[in-house]
């Protein structure tokens, strides 16, 4: 039993780790589907958000649990398997180490389950993100292990290149602010500490999935049972129990806390602890009598309420502007009465209001928490300061146009990745597992700090200071396990408008320095910014926002500092960009050389 569990766990663990560190995207898409299918929280969210029956992985997990107990926790959950790793290492070092039975910490365990569920039902996914084991694992791997992997790759590449072998290539990692990495670091610390001290206590006290499955495992068919007649109370099973759920004195197993590692079975010399179906059991543990009906009802209620939620969000959808306003720290003066499902006309209305009233909604932390380039658009309250005061923050190497630009871009909405439909859908569905962050080939997706407000902490956003979105790429929409970024075809993606281009011509180097540039237009895949004749031979940018897809290439490429001359302002709801017109060119074929 234990061997099977270990093998399955290793397969799941390493596959999941590799998914999160695979910056070259060596793995095919099917690989993602297979290994993410059984992740409970992402699968559940995708089911709710994508309104799709192909994402029934969570039902499989629930069925599995009701049949076999929490095998998910030891064989599928990457965070659980990671703890097993830590414990395995500890056991190697200290062979005499023994676990001791502890009482369940139910006063923490169930609140930690209730908190994300209630918060989610009332409209914020924040606590789900914070507590979901898959997302936590994803953040840990993507934020810490991937850089290590890239570093190893780069070192390997350097060494191989010395030997004139060009098999590996170095990769540059770009990370925006370190603040977003604080939480995963903190959590990794907590997990290491808790597991070293108390085994799988995290899974039985803090993890809401553990609590939920624990709840369900009270009714599971196969379970760990002690055969009282053969048991000599030697305690070996209890010493081997990572979940510390075997009470040897009373010969009871708290199966709600059992993570299904089967170490106890291997440990028992008398074969007195077994994994049995009820038919063969000789003595039934008392807690099995625990009012099953009640649990079934509450489980059913939970599923029903989730369906109900799905309906409120997708069926009616009228109240979300209001709830969103509360949720996010972004300035959003959306009047509650007006439905957000309207066209750009309403958007315009929102925009114009913001331009007058933009600072009011911004939390103060936004400025202090932003450790990136001072040219970052979020520092709206710096308006009054002179650029010179901001300059010391810029590293010396960054080139300056002769005249520092003075006009600050005015962004109203953070840009969300294509396929995410808009800020509302994205921030409601993303658990910040950072799979897209590690899969994105350009690294334009970066963990947010306060870009979506405090409740959107760590949810990825399109960071056009770091890079831009590749026009011919839909990788993030393919990998997203929760449905926050819905799958897009390549053709559809090319017309999804995630934001619109804005030009501050007075910042443009062509105008300030009277020299040629064209960097924005050069990068633009649709020519939503094109170069038109200016003075003499010079050309100057001109924008056509209606064909802009909002990829941010122009903003990334614009060389002026501290403020860029061109930038993308996010669309609260993604729109459809018009296709660039195509005129036929004359095929001029001359026989003569023009020289």
């Amino acid at each position, binding site marked *: 039993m234990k061997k099977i569990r270990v093998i399955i766990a290793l397969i799941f663990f390493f596959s999941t780790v590799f998914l999160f560190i695979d910056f070259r995207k060596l793995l095919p898409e099917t690989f993602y589907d297979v290994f993410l299918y059984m992740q409970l929280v992402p699968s559940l969210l995708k089911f709710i958000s994508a309104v799709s029956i192909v994402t029934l992985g969570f039902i499989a997990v629930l069925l599995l649990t009701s049949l076999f107990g929490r095998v998910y926790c030891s064989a599928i959950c990457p965070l659980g398997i990671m703890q097993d790793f830590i414990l395995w290492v500890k056991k190697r070092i200290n062979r005499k180490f023994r676990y001791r039975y502890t009482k369940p910490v139910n006063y923490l365990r169930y609140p930690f389950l209730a908190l994300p569920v209630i918060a989610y039902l009332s409209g914020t996914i924040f606590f789900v993100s914070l507590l979901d084991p898959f997302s936590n694992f994803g953040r840990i791997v993507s934020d810490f292990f991937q850089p290590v992997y890239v570093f190893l790759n780069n070192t390997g590449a350097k060494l191989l290149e010395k030997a004139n072998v060009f098999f590996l290539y170095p990769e540059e990692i770009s990370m925006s602010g370190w603040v977003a990495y604080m939480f995963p670091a903190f959590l990794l610390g907590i997990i290491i500490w808790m597991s070293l001290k108390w085994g799988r206590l995290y899974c039985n006290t803090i993890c809401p999935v553990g609590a939920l499955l624990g709840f369900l495992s009270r009714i599971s068919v196969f379970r760990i049972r002690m055969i009282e007649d053969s048991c000599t109370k030697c305690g070996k099973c209890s010493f081997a129990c990572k979940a510390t759920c075997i009470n040897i004195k009373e010969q009871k197993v708290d199966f709600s806390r059992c993570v299904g590692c089967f170490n106890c079975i291997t440990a028992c010399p008398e074969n007195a602890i077994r994994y049995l179906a009820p038919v063969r059991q000789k003595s039934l543990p008392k807690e099995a009598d625990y009012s099953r009906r009640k649990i079934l009802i509450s489980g059913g209620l939970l599923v029903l309420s989730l369906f109900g939620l799905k309906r409120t969000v997708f069926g009616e959808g009228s109240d979300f502007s209001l709830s969103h306003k509360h949720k996010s720290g972004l300035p959003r003066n959306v009047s509650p009465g007006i439905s957000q499902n309207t066209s750009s006309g309403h958007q315009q209305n929102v925009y114009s209001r913001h331009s007058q009233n933009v600072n009011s909604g911004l939390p103060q932390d936004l400025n202090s928490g932003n450790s990136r380039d001072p040219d970052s658009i979020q520092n709206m309250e710096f308006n009054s300061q002179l650029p010179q005061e901001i300059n010391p923050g810029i590293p010396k190497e960054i080139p300056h146009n002769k005249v520092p630009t003075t006009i600050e871009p005015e962004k109203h909405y953070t840009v969300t990745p294509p396929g995410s439909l808009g800020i509302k859908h994205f921030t409601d569905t993303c658990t910040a597992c950072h799979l897209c962050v590690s899969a994105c080939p350009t690294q334009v997706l970066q963990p947010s700090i306060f870009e979506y407000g405090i409740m959107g902490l760590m949810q990825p956003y399109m960071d056009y200071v770091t890079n831009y979105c590749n026009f011919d790429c839909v990788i993030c929409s393919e990998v997203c396990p929760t449905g926050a970024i819905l799958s897009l075809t390549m053709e559809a993606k090319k017309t999804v408008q995630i934001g619109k281009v804005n030009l501050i011509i007075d910042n443009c180097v062509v105008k300030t320095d009277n020299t040629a540039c064209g960097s924005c237009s050069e990068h633009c895949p649709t020519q939503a910014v094109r170069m038109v004749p200016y003075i003499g*031979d010079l*050309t100057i940018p001109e924008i056509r926002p209606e064909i802009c897809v909002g990829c941010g290439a122009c903003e990334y490429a614009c060389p002026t500092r501290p403020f860029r001359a061109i930038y993308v302002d996010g669309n609260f709801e993604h729109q459809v960009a018009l296709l660039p017109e195509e005129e036929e060119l004359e095929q001029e074929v001359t026989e003569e050389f023009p020289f």
Partner: protein
Amino acid sequence: MKRRDFIWKGLSAGIITGSALAMNPFKKAMGAVQDEQAWDLVAVKGGEPGLMFDKAILSLGGMKRYVKPNQTVVVKPNIGWDTSAERGANTNPQLVARIVEHCLSAGAKTVYLFDHTINEWTRTYSNSGIEKAAKDAGAKIASGNSESYYQPITIKNGRLLKKDKVHELILESDVFINVPILKSHGGTTLTISMKNLMGVMWDRSYWHNNDLQQCIADFASEIKPTLNVVDAYKVMKRNGPRGVSLSDVVEMKSLIISEDIVAADAAAAKLFGKEPEQIGHIRIANEMGVGTSDLTKLSINRITV
């Protein structure tokens, strides 16, 4: 041997061989493999990219004139964009492959190939078709998108650009073959050989910030390719340098090859339908003496296939 030394020695060797040939009574017999006249520039029209290159390089005396046995060669095409080959945003893969083959059959030890791309490089390398074509031809593909490869240089004759960081393969290889594609460009009107050198240096935004046209000319005064091969097979006439769709591209089926980077660009500009003086960096580079844009002063071999 440093590349610069090589060029110098190669040139002197060339002069000696040339003069020896001039006095050789068996000149006619040698002429079978080598054209009698040393052309400054060769323009070819009407063939497939590989074939046009065969004709052009033969007319210049074969690749052996540039690549000596056991030397290292770096080929620098334009692989800037994540678009397919027919879009004309990246250099033609067949042309690149044929150049690699010529270098290897001339005895090159290794032929490296890279570009500091604009879109994500692994995608541009593969989607342009260049990675596969070049690998099949025997080139070693290197990355140009990691700053660690770039070494500082000083630009002695630069008017504005005094120093920069250049890819080590450019600095270390014996022979540097620049293979741009002729395209329209929103900022610099055209992008040809000199503009293609923006893919061997690191910090492009500095140039964009500080008089782009002057920087292009300054850089070309320091980093001189052994040979410039301008791909004008499919030419992007508008919306360059990335292009929006296939409708931006016309088939010109032409190729220009020259040791003089300014001459190559001037001829390509004319092919495109522009006067060399209209293009800022060509005009400046001509003034600075990087090369000559006056095509009437050059001996040009015009070949129609």
